[in-house]
């Protein structure tokens, strides 16, 4: 696992775009300890984005891409919406095909990669909005989980259709007045995290993206569990500041307000028994790695 596949022929190095040269020189591909703290120090897998100023989705994208454990062998699947405006900038292969079919695409993709690369890990990560995940694509979201497809589904929950201008979605709160909910939404926010657990997901987290270290942890857990055991689901609150009447600098506070213990994005987690065992194994390995590093450091200074 390295940057071998992205190397540029020496003779052509100087004519390649600066950001590609940068990717080869400074990307964190191959570094198993990569994480959000590399942001700003290493070549990021997303730099610019075409979202609104201050959009929490742009933070979420950066944390997630910095935390993927194996980006050099990860393929992402998106769907139509604000996320599809970002993916063209992302330095891992990604697929946009239609609106709502992301978990069907990922099912075929993961199986194809498993057939073609039986001896290697090729991670598949779906990242789509709540309209794609819970409304138009719900059938395919759930069926992929029923079939125990081994990939991670991430839903950027902004509680409405942001890209089309703020219409009601299934994950919108009850009573919220929006386009297509002119007298307020009449039914409760769909409880997809609970449905995910009952549908066979082995790891389910519901939280905001206010804390980068938390996002790093849940992304790594979700990808590792999906790789070894079965489907995983992350529902991340990425408020659409535009549509809820906030200013550019208020996204973070909105997330902090919404993750208080009694609020709808208070941290919730479900881990299946086999997933718990896997996480314990991974934690033990990490502990051993750190102890070994410490021993080596002590050896060097002695």
């Amino acid at each position, binding site marked *: 696992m390295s940057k071998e596949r992205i190397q540029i022929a020496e003779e052509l190095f100087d004519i390649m775009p600066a950001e590609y040269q940068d990717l080869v020189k400074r990307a964190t591909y191959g570094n198993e300890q990569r994480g959000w703290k590399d942001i700003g120090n290493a070549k990021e897998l997303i730099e610019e984005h075409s979202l609104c100023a201050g959009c929490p989705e742009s933070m979420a994208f950066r944390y997630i891409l910095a935390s993927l454990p194996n980006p050099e062998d990860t393929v992402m699947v998106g769907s139509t919406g604000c996320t599809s405006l970002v993916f063209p900038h992302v*330095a*891992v292969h990604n697929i946009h095909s239609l609106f709502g079919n992301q978990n*069907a*695409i990922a*099912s075929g993709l993961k*199986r194809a990669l498993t057939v073609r690369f039986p001896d290697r890990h090729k991670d598949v990560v779906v990242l789509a909005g709540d309209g794609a995940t819970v409304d138009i694509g719900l*059938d395919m979201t759930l069926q992929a989980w029923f*079939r125990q497809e081994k990939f991670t589904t991430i839903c950027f929950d902004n509680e409405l259709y942001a890209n089309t201008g703020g219409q009601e979605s299934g994950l919108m709160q009850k009573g919220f007045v929006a386009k297509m909910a002119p007298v307020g939404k009449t039914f409760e926010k769909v409880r997809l995290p609970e449905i995910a657990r009952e549908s066979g997901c082995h790891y389910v987290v519901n939280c905001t993206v206010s804390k980068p270290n938390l996002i790093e942890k849940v992304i790594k857990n979700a990808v590792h569990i999906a790789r070894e055991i079965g489907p995983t689901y992350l529902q991340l609150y990425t408020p659409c500041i535009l549509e809820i009447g906030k200013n550019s600098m208020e996204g973070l506070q909105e997330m902090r307000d919404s993750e208080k213990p009694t609020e709808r994005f208070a941290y919730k987690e479900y881990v299946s028994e086999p997933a718990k065992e896997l996480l314990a194994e991974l934690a033990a390995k990490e502990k051993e790695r750190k102890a070994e590093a410490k021993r080596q450091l002590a050896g060097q200074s002695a």
Partner: protein
Amino acid sequence: MAAQASFIGQKNKKEQVYTDPWHMMNEAARTPSFFTGSEVIKEAVRRASCDIMVAYPITPQSEAAALCGELFAEGYIGDYFRGESEFAVMSQCAGAAFGGARVFTTTAGPGTMRAMENFPMWAGARLPIQMIVTCRGINSPLSIQPDTLEIAYLMQTGMLVWHAETAQDFYDWILKGYMVSEEPDVHLPLALCCDGFFVTHTKDMVDLTPVDMCLPPYDPYRSPVPCMDMECPPVRMMRDPFVMKSNYISYATHASWQQEVWAAVERSRKHTIRWMDGLIDTENADADVIVVASGTAVSQSREAIAILEDEGIQVGLVKVKTLRPWPGEEIREATKHAKHIIVPEFNVIGWLAREVRSTVQNNERVHAGPHVCGGMTMPPEIIAAEIKTVLGVKAPSLAGRGG
């Protein structure tokens, strides 16, 4: 081609030898076998080195899709599963093709329509998926019989569209289809259509290629677009997504890409002519009256022509094998002396007649019909009667038309 050629002579895990496709299809000894169309699909797929098949039950293709499941159980296909709907299945096929797999699937009628959003996406993403379409009625009232209306929609998607007449066509074209659609200058999905039940559920003699020979595996790195497997550098694809802009670059990109898809359909022509020995077949093309037909309408027309020949009326026949690419030049040439061009079809709108009308000179010569709807049978007698009407020859009344 080097990567694929390197497999030739090696064996797969089922002990089949990866064989030069031209030798396998044109030179290797054939074994006559008595099979249903569905069984023929299975036998072709057995020899096609498919990586992934996704299935969904719909009459009349269910049997073929289930038989391919048996092939998976026997180890001839890399992976196989049942999707939740035709829309999902066609997206699952897309995902597998994006990931570099050779993909096979089947559908019919309402399923084709339900999945329709996927097909222009397949073509635009240049995914060489092969989809068998066992045509079935799509409008109300419910029909499970082989009405061919769905082909009219498929012809506008940017896919290659071929229309098989017989089980033998079907067998050969499944295997040849991959060879054409996977060419780097084509690299498009193929809708291989037949008239359901008439072809899938009847038994016919079919000459099969040797069971120990199979196609060389698909090489996804011959694709004109990157395979989404992170085995080649992940470029940042564009400065801004084209959906956001109405500027010159977006206009140019959309126009050039969509024209490129249709140009790729045109470029498939030379490969298709080579593999299929032409886009049309003609019989007795010097006659004053020519029937132009595709699918089982060809077989029925052949019977009608025999009936008329007994009565001293000479009628020629054009069998249209491919609808995309459209054999316009071939049809113009084959019908240039004809005074009347008769186009019998298993659908109410007459899409083939529309295409022929837009192709030939003096298109008042084109007579759309007869049409049968809902996939009901088309007796040769009604084709013969149509021709006699056009010629002004008095035809005896047919049963059901009154005295």
